């Protein structure tokens, strides 16, 4: 498998690492995790990764961890977990075949093969990533027309949906929505004094029971107080007039229409 593409990749760091323990330890920062270290070590065996000796790899890795610790280089926990796991795997691989099969544990050879596969895969991806990087890159190595003609020729509209952009667009707005200050327009109310004045003027006409709805002014469509406001203010004004004794009010039952009628002057009030 090795070298099927990009034969001349630079694995200097990995090579140095195996010659000289310190080089590797210093490079740990550059590695992302135990699997990357394992890959660097595995490459030093100079065999097809699929034929890798996992026992040997385990030894190499344990030696690496050992050196790192002796230099008081603090290793992240997952490096140590990997060390423990490899030590255990190695011991299982070295045991005589009739492994006292621990419950549902897969055979050690299968586990080892799996590790080799993961390393081969990661290796392939590393090489792929470098191979991609070596391709002529747009606006780095190759360039398109610097000044497309005044008349733009645009490719056909093949809309490529971008869910990430969709999500970002959504979240951006929801955020804005939340932090937007809410400034409701104050509703225009029908002033009580106006209602009172109007009702007083209407008194002479209210000589029969008349529904409140019929008395309150009708709203203008576009501006001015709403119907509800006209009704409410007229009702309030009418109650005041009732209190004053100028008006009578009547309602058959709760929520039924309210009727108003002018109160005839009482003899005793005279």
């Amino acid at each position, binding site marked *: 498998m090795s070298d099927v593409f990009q034969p001349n990749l630079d694995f200097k760091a990995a090579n140095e690492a195996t010659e000289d323990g310190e080089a590797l330890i210093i490079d740990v920062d550059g590695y992302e995790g135990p699997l990357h270290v394992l890959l660097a070590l595995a490459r030093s065996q100079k065999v097809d990764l699929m034929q890798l*000796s996992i026992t040997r790899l385990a030894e190499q890795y344990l030696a690496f961890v050992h050196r790192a610790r002796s230099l008081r280089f603090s290793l992240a926990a997952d490096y140590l977990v990997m*060390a423990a796991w490899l030590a255990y795997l190695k011991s299982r691989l070295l045991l005589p075949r009739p492994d006292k099969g621990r419950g549902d544990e897969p055979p050690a050879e299968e586990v080892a093969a799996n590790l080799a596969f993961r390393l081969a895969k990661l290796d392939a991806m590393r090489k792929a990533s470098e191979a991609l990087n070596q391709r002529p890159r747009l606006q780095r190595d190759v360039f398109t027309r610097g000044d497309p003609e005044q008349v733009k020729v645009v490719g056909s509209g093949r809309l490529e949906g971008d869910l990430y952009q969709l999500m970002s667009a959504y979240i951006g707005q929801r955020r804005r929505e939340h932090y937007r200050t809410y400034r409701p327009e104050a509703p225009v109310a029908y002033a009580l004094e106006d209602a009172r004045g109007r009702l007083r003027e209407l008194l002479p006409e209210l000589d029969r029971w008349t529904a409140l709805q019929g008395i309150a002014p009708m709203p203008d469509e576009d501006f001015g107080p709403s119907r509800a406001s006209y009704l409410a203010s007229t009702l309030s004004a009418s109650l005041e007039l009732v209190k004053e004794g100028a008006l009578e009010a009547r309602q058959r039952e709760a929520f039924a229409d309210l009727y108003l009628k002018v109160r005839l002057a009482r003899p005793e009030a005279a």
Partner: protein
Amino acid sequence: MNDQHHIERCIEALLFAAAEPLSINDLARRLPEGADVVEAIQALRQRFDGRGVELVEVAGRWRIQTAADLAFLMTEEREEPRRLSKAAQETLAIIAYHQPVTRAEIEAVRGVQASKGTLDVLLELGLVRMRGRRRTPGRPVTYGTTDMFLETFGLANLADLPGMTDMKALGLLDMNLPPGFSVPDPSLASDASDTEDELDLEGGDSPEFVQDFVGDE
């Protein structure tokens, strides 16, 4: 004068003038009925051979670009592209070769939890997009590459990814151990016995630790 030469001239002019790559259909739509665009493209391509600009296919469409070996001239045009970290590059490769792929699968290949920024950067740069959801429990989101990825790296299509065929043949693009994968023979570890001691490296650490870990696994 609808001859091949005329068609070639037209395509050349259109591709020069275009602000982005054009598909065969884009071209055909602007050319006289019945024009053999594919043949003209091939002829043009040869004509450009060895010139300062060349005709290439990217993301299934065609564009004219400067020859790669003249990159050194283009100091003024060069945009310093946002440098991708090693982690981001590796992630991009994994997505390109395995798409559609879930975040968990990416992490499994790399053996590390994807740091938050890695995928974001690729998504933001428009090199990677969310493709949909896997029909498995949890219905994880899957990722794939965009046309812009192909355009950036000058690839006609995904099959053109370097080494793709070899990797496929070797089963390296499967997510699980392919059936033919050889199991390493532990007996080949000839020098196992003389390093036995190194097992102790954890300082004879409690067997419980090993035990625990195995338990977790």
